[in-house]
């Protein structure tokens, strides 16, 4: 029984670990590329969370063509999966833009160290 609880909650434990790792990376890493990776880790954590929420034991994907007999009445409402797909697409746009900014910053400042990229202050 005890093992079951761990197995069921395993995805959520991973989500918590990834969230902590992501925030740590954003907060404490000095390389701008690593900060971008930190944002990506956070995004992975949130996507995993949504997918893990949407898992129904014994449920079937709601694809009506060639659905097996057992699937009738057992199909899941695919909202979390749809949310995750949208979030992945948005995430690609965000990371592309962040990396473009990082390239441009490297061109002008000659460094990716976030403690040295500080011309705007005060």
């Amino acid at each position, binding site marked *: 029984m005890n093992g079951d609880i761990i197995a069921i909650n395993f995805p959520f434990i991973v989500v918590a670990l990834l969230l902590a790792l992501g925030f740590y990376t954003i907060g404490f890493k000095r390389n701008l590329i690593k900060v971008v990776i930190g*944002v990506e880790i956070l*995004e992975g954590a949130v996507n995993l969370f949504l997918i893990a929420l949407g898992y129904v034991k014994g449920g079937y994907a709601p694809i009506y063509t060639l659905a097996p007999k057992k699937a009738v009445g057992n199909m899941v409402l695919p909202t979390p999966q749809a949310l995750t797909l949208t979030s992945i697409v948005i995430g690609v746009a965000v990371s592309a833009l962040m990396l473009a*900014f990082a390239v441009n910053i490297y061109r002008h400042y000659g460094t990716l160290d976030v403690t040295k990229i500080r011309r*705007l202050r*005060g």
Partner: protein
Amino acid sequence: MMEHLPALMIAVPLFGAFTTPLLKKRYSLASMWAIIITAATLGLSLLLVQEVLSKGIIVYVFGAKNPSLVLPSGYRVPVRIIFEIDAIGAFMALSATLMSFIGALYSYSHVRMESGLEKYYALLLLLEVGILGMVLTGDLFNLFVFLEIAGIAGSALVGFRNYRGEASEAGIKYLIVSAVASLMVLFSIGLLYGQYGNLNIAYLSTQIHFDTVDMIALGLLFVSFAMKCGSVPMHYWVPDAYTEVPAGINPTLLVATYASLYALFRVSFSLFGAITWNMARVGWIMSILGVLTMFIGVTMALVQKDVKRLMSYHAISQTGYMLLGVGVGLTVLNDPAKLSAFGRTAMAGGIFHIINHIIYKSLLLMTAGALFYVTGTRNLNEMGGLARRMPYTTIAFIVGAAAISGIPPFNGFASKFLIYETSYQLNPLLAVIAMVTSVLTLASFVKVFASAFLGPPLEKYNEVREVPKPMVAAMIILAVLCILFGLFPNVVLKNLIYPAVDALLKLAQYQSWGGLA
């Protein structure tokens, strides 16, 4: 056409955003096109406001007549994409479209010399789409999607002048803040979906019973939206972003910030409005954050030498007034006597201050853009004696500065007076800090006026002329609005602001749309 108004509000600027890049070779055509599209959207939003005020809440369902899904077992849930527009959503939509139009008009001359203008206008229209979607939607996930659209378009515009490294620095700062904030919003949406199996705000608010998980969701939503509206512990991105963005985008970017403020109000009043837990605590947090925000913002502004940066710190400080006004209202939400005595007026002050601040701060940032346009510098110490050379800009600056300092008869006074009066009744200290902030604001704008416009004419600015006509027109429109809103505050309050406040306060009305009992 009238019944499809909510869809058109999104479709028209989106169509504009995707057709603008086709006009790559002729950028004056692209800017004319953007002006036409934003003007059309402004017309649509005026129609929308009229519809909402005369007929009440509009519920628009995409792809069906009825929002609900009935399962064979009789289980009814709303599943489709739903726009639910009440008076405050319509009010925010009106401000967004007005400011996009002003911004497009101003940009016509202001960014003429830059390259890649078709992308600039496409992003401006996308930013408008993002804001409009955020304020019109009735669905939490939709809110997240449009929040991201506004965040991406906004940060791309902040980094628009990519030949300046500082612009990219400000852009990535804004993008990281908005990406983290929206991911946390998505996480709390996931929490709420796991709890109640739905994403519709009105439906969720009837279901919520506020256990620990909901409390975490409320906390995450509150922090993320406070981060994106530039409240104090997370305000560091605001001055960078507002300083580096081209002045024509400033009005729209301001509204994008306040769309997050709107989302914060929507979460506190509608989504979690029905819970029995006393919202007074959240209200006090909001008020104290507001007071801190206004004071820290203004003290940072006093020491600035860069004219746009100085004004950006004032933008932070003014956000504090809105948080204070609405926070006072939220504190007394569960106390009907106090709510009718001063809570409703406090919220009216806060919400009135949103539109007033958008108008005069856009005006001020545009005059700063005009100074940059003619002098090529933003450093106040290098300017001087420009009043004779640029009479219209000077007049616009005086109107804006008087409005932000709360001098009657300009619009800033009307809303600040409501906030002073009501926050005094909650706790006199709040009102005292608000007034001190206002005095400090006046001091720092006197400094700008003296160093940029007054003084002996400098030799290097002998060739300076008044800025081109579209820029002057955009500034004059806003200056006239400043004076009109200040002279006739009762008309605006009665027709726009109080309906918006009541829309926030009357939760039952928000929940009771058709299709779902």
